[in-house]
């Protein structure tokens, strides 16, 4: 197997920083185990079946550094977007007012947002029943997963108490600003939705356009019995940064999970979603939108694991590629042997705007139970010519007609209930479309 040069690089970084990292966030054997797994797997290379598309061109030309553990930015700014909490540079938690905190309580204490080190120090038992439970299951799969556990020192703890229903959606902004070029930024967010709780989160991920980072974010999302969680993310990374984002979710009986991410461009971004439907009666709804132009590359890898009977999953992904952009979707539904009465649907629809753009879609079904209803549909194409003509014959010029149809095509996936937030997402989509259509 071909050795990726980042493998030895990260192992060297480990030699240099392991002790400091452990002092920041003591993880005991987890960290050491992860390193050994990373050593075995190595940094993912192109020859791996599920990494063929993700040739993050140029990622190995950088000596990614941790540069001490702090990003060295004391002069961060509170981002303009109003939020309930901000997480800056993967290290500093701010409350809605912009005050630096170790813990923020919202909704009368029903929601606690804390730094990981705070959670580790104050609720060690709960911390260790959740932390790396899901990521650990993936660590032997690809080296990218243990890489996070090896180096993570900071992150967020987001916990919703049992049997509470939040009165409004909560907003968290993840911002990367003024971090020196070349930084490797591993972070972890741990989401815990208590039994019977109901919560909605709006997430904004962004960075400073001129900078050049390797952002590696793993979300572990745990939903207890009857919990209902909605997460909608506007993912907008600019500049030359490399982004790896994993959302690993596990759902207990009768819980419901609705997730949407709109990915607006990115030089090189890979979203990896692994949904484990762990107990019967679970409902999972995953949607995503990706818009790529110029030389951008965005990939969504979605794995839905129907481990038990009587669960439902829906996937709806839409991609639009212009310029020499590349967009990819790999959806993999696994229905295990006894997962009878499974219903699983997957849809991947894409539009290619230019002859140098490229869309790849791999909608996989792997099914070992017979009493199931599974289907998928995938299309790659262009805008409907008859509709284009209809609009033009009503006086709408070509470019505007395209924008109108593409907006409608994209907006259909945006699973956000609050009208003004939905409009905010759509406005970002339209800004990107303006760029793609010029």
């Amino acid at each position: 197997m071909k050795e990726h040069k980042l493998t030895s690089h990260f192992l060297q970084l480990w030699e240099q920083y392991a002790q400091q990292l452990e002092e920041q966030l003591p993880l005991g054997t987890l960290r050491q185990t992860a390193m050994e797994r990373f050593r075995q797997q190595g940094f993912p290379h192109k020859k791996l079946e599920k990494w063929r598309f993700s040739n993050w061109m140029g990622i190995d030309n950088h000596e990614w550094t941790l540069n001490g553990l702090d990003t060295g930015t004391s002069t961060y700014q509170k981002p303009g977007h109003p939020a309930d909490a901000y997480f800056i540079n993967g290290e500093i938690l701010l409350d809605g007012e912009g005050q630096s905190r170790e813990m923020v309580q919202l909704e009368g204490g029903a929601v606690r947002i804390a730094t990981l080190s705070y959670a580790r120090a104050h609720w060690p038992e709960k911390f260790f029943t959740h932390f790396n439970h899901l990521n650990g299951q993936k660590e032997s799969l690809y080296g990218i997963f243990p890489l996070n556990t090896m180096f993570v020192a900071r992150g967020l703890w987001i916990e919703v108490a049992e049997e509470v229903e939040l009165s409004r959606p909560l907003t968290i902004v993840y911002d990367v600003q003024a971090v020196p070029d070349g930084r490797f930024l591993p972070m972890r967010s741990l989401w815990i939705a208590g039994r019977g709780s109901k919560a909605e989160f709006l997430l904004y991920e962004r960075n400073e356009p001129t900078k050049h980072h390797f952002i590696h974010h793993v979300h572990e999302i745990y939903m207890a019995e009857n919990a209902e969680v909605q997460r909608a993310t506007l993912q907008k990374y600019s500049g030359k940064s490399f982004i790896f984002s994993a959302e690993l979710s596990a759902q207990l009986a009768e819980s419901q999970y609705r997730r949407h991410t709109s990915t607006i461009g990115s030089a090189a971004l890979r979203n990896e979603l692994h949904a484990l439907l762990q107990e019967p009666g679970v409902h999972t709804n995953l949607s995503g939108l990706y818009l790529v132009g110029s030389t951008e590359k965005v990939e969504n890898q979605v794995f839905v694991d129907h481990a038990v009977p009587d669960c439902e999953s829906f996937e709806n992904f839409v991609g639009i590629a212009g310029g020499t952009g590349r967009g990819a979707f790999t959806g993999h539904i696994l229905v295990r042997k006894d997962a009878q009465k499974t219903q699983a649907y997957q849809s991947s629809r894409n539009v290619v705007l230019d002859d140098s753009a490229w869309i790849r879609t791999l909608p996989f079904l792997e099914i070992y139970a017979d009493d199931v209803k599974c289907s998928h549909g995938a299309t790659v194409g262009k805008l409907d010519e008859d509709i284009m003509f209809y609009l033009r014959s009503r006086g709408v010029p070509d470019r505007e007609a395209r924008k109108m149809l593409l907006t409608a095509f994209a907006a259909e996936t945006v699973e956000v209930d609050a009208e003004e937030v939905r409009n905010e997402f759509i406005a970002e989509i339209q800004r990107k479309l303006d760029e793609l259509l010029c």
Partner: protein
Amino acid sequence: MSDSDKIIQEYTTREYEHGFVTDIEMDVVPPGLDEEKIRFISRKKNEPDWLLEFRLKAYRTWKQMEQPNWAHLDIPPIDFQSYSYYAEPKKKPRYKSLDEVDPKLIETFNKLGIPLEEQKRLAGVAVDAVFDSVSVMTTYKETLQELGIIFCSISEAVQEHPDLVKKYLGSVVPIHDNFYAALNSAVFSDGSFVYIPPGVRCPMELSTYFRINTKGLGQFERTLIIADEGSYVSYLEGCTAPMRDENQLHAAVVEIIVHKDAEVKYSTVQNWYPGDEEGKGGIFNFVTKRGICLGDRSKLSWTQVETGSAITWKYPSTILKGDYSQAEFYSVALTNNRQQADTGTKMIHLGKHTKSLVISKGISAGRSQNTYRGMVSIAKNAVHSRNFSQCDSLLLTDKCGAHTFPYIDVHNSSSVVEHEATTSKIADEQIFYLQQRGLDEEEAVRLIVNGYAREVLQQLPMEFAAEARKLLEISLEGSVG
């Protein structure tokens, strides 16, 4: 015991219909493979130097390669040195007339429903019968010759039409294409050769019948079909093998070249011995089939009915090079007991305004694993191209698996690719409805499966559609769970 259990039991005791062994004296080359064996095969067949070089180059390439492991298949380790790579009937391998043919061979093909005698010949079908490594007999040869059509064994074509063979052999499936293709290129024994001259519409079905008989023999046939400008041919192959406890190896290569305005229909009814209900024995079927629509407006249509083999690894593919060229792939793959199939197609669109259609129907029963694997690739210059794929899977028991792995790549803005897939079982209400109308459960399943496969079966030449339907029903009998 429930009805369905009874039916299952009844089926599992059913024997593979074509499982008899022909007791005929064969010259078998000792097992194992090295350059000397390849020289021996080549010498035995009196081949020109270029072909020996082709074989040796393939052998050297193969030695550098590893057996692929990406398919959704559990392939037991194969000792390629344990197989024998050549066998021929002791008596004269090639016959001028039927009188010279060993009566046991004639009887074998009669039993298989492929009569070689003049008076019993299938009307409208010319047959090339391949027994183990050697082509035994080609019928209707003279009739075809009058039209300039060449239909003979590839060994004969090497002697009689060396220029054509040299020009096209390895042009669609190069020797380094994959592990099994390289092996085939090194050791291929016989197979069919078809050449249709410009503007000629072949008036009858051309058919090759493959039979593996000898124990421990690998069969490596090679088929080469060339449809010159504006010509048409429909070609069909069928395969069977005796029941044997050990696995037998079959690694064929088929190359099809379709010139401008020509059309080729290629149909397969694959019924190699699938092994017993515990998965013992059966054929390992590792096949590389590929055609190229070389000229503008050329057309290639694949139809396959796959019911046999312990393991199937097969992806009949088309390279759509000519502008406005078209390709179709119709497939029914039925797996039962411990069978494993990983099969599908690749449609590589290179020319402008090219079109392809994929209809795949998988049926899984017993403890089998059935995978559709397909690729549709639209190149940057293949503007205004289209593909539609429909891949359905039907699960008949809760112990089998049905998998769909499509790969779709689109590199331009004027093409449209659509892929749809569903996985389901037969609805209880459908069975009940038919039972209420007087069918038993098994008849109901047969009817429903036949309806399910209909779109594919009706693509087969008429003479074979009924045969395929029967085969499907036999393979299906008692598999209801």
